[in-house]
């Protein structure tokens, strides 16, 4: 619980700082901090793959900003978008759904809402395990994805199967929930 509270406070500070500052060096520092912290996690490989897979999306808006307002604005936009995604990713890599749910119940949030949040958050590690499954299948097929460089090179090989597997997983989960009575009574 203490860990959840500490990470929650750290996340709020991190997000407020990145949203409020225009200092390029501070933004760059914040952008470096998140992957470094992720590297300390036991699930660093999957977390870094998720973060890396978001980078192409983050490049699009800064590219527009580059043509409109120049390089500094483009960099600033990129760092802000990056920190916006990296902060929560670090949080949910270190804090599991049930600890977060306990934290919410301390704040007297209704049980029903907590369940929805907890189940949605439980989905993140499940998607991560699907990505890990595809990673393992690739390694098993001798595709050189052991190194971070190899993972980046074959990023597109992860993406489509992971997306489809996530949809399937969401369906399986919702079916399991309904079969076990969720939604049958108020």
């Amino acid at each position: 619980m203490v860990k959840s509270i500490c990470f929650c406070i750290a996340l709020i500070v991190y997000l407020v700082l990145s949203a409020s500052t225009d200092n390029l060096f501070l933004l760059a520092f914040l952008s470096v901090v998140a992957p470094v912290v992720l590297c300390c996690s036991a699930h660093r490989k999957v977390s870094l793959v998720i973060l890396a897979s978001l980078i192409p999306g983050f490049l699009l808006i800064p590219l527009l900003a580059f043509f409109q307002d120049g390089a500094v604005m483009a960099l600033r936009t990129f760092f802000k978008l990056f920190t916006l995604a990296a902060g929560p990713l670090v949080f949910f890599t270190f804090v599991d759904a049930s600890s977060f749910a306990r934290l919410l119940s301390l704040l007297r949030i209704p049980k029903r809402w907590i369940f929805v949040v907890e189940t949605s958050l439980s989905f993140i590690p499940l998607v991560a395990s699907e990505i890990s499954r595809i990673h393992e299948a690739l390694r098993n097929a001798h595709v050189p994805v052991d190194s971070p460089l190899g993972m980046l090179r074959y990023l597109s090989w992860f993406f489509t199967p992971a997306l489809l597997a996530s949809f399937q997983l969401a369906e399986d989960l919702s079916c399991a929930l309904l079969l076990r009575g969720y939604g049958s009574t108020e």
Partner: protein
Amino acid sequence: MTVHIEGLSWKPLQGSFCLKEVSFSLDRGSITVITGSNGSGKSTLLSLIAGRAPYLRGKPSGTLHSCGIDVFSSGISALFPRVLSLSVRTERELFRPTVRQELLFPLQFLDVEESERQERFASSVTFFGLESILDQNPRHLSGGEQKLVALATAFAIRPELLCLDEPLSQLSNSKKALVLEALRVFAREGRTVVLSEHERNVLDGIASREIEMEGGQVVYDGPFRSVEDEKQHLQSMDIDGPSRNTPRFIIDGVQYRHRSITHNAQKKFLRIPFATIESGLTVLRGDNGTGKSTLLRLLRGLVRPERGTILFDGKKIGKASSHKKMIYLPQDPLRFFYTVNGREQLFYGVSSVEAERLIESFSLSSLLDILPCYLSTGEQRRLALACALARFPSFMLLDELDAALDLRWRNLIGRELTRSVASGCDVLIASHSRFLWSANAREIALEGLGAFSYG
């Protein structure tokens, strides 16, 4: 009548009819087994009975009533707690962070007293022997243990109708006996059980009725036809090769602690002081949760031991992308696929002549362009094995290859493996079925977490 089906047909969005004009009724308190070859429509039928139609992507026609409820017009949640189904891939239906929460989750929606809930929880835990794993994440358990957790949940809900898809696959003999006893108790209480199962011999004296499916139609509906010994129908593998008894793997002082992708890592260890795995066919046995799958993953290099070394042909196991001629087929065949269809994976970097031969031999032509997760488990297994064999591996690590396969495919797979072993490929297979791999096979038993005994 618990189930009443009249003229039921099911057409998937892609492909031809999966079920055609199926009609039958199931009486209260009966145990009915649905048999048939892989892809005959057993799982689809079970899913429809349990109200999973909205998740199957297709169009139904005819009538289907489960416990008096029209499953096509009412939602899936209307069937709770009267109908419950467990799919063959139970691990995808476990979603709570601990086994305890998984068992308690459905009980909170039951209209019963708190004391009754606690009693159901306790009796379910005791019956299935889950005391030691109550605080573990169900997703970190072995395939067999996950199956027991899902069955324990069903046992606690006590539905009027229980639909089980391959409930005995991946289970050791002692666990199978436990599940069969649970089914007996269920039926004795007047509840109805309908299940699909390939291992017919274990259902002798338990199942009262058999419905055999073929090509989406019912071809037999009557009393359960006992199979005195399924072994008679299995062709034994006649392995013979000049290179037998050469050590391929040498395991020295290996220790591995399970670490999972999610939180609350298990504190389970696999320790193997010294062991060798020789050429030819070796069968790895052991109870559920003894570490068979973990050992295969260690040998493949997908996970690394904390201590000790594993040598393959005298070289230390390194990155998984090295050892090009070693292939591992996981317990969950879906873990083998990384492409959006089987064709892409089968033809990737292999001889097209061999791939075409395997397509013919394993009857895969209609399955190649379908997303692997939409195939039945038996179909996934056939496709995965074909993909592996097409690469002419020198060593294959097979995890529960024979689970969810009917006799025809088991025999065919046996023939294909015999062919591979004869041409110089060695095989280590983790399996619970004692008779299938007996001929000329060396046997290793994993007892506890890592103790080896040779047979």
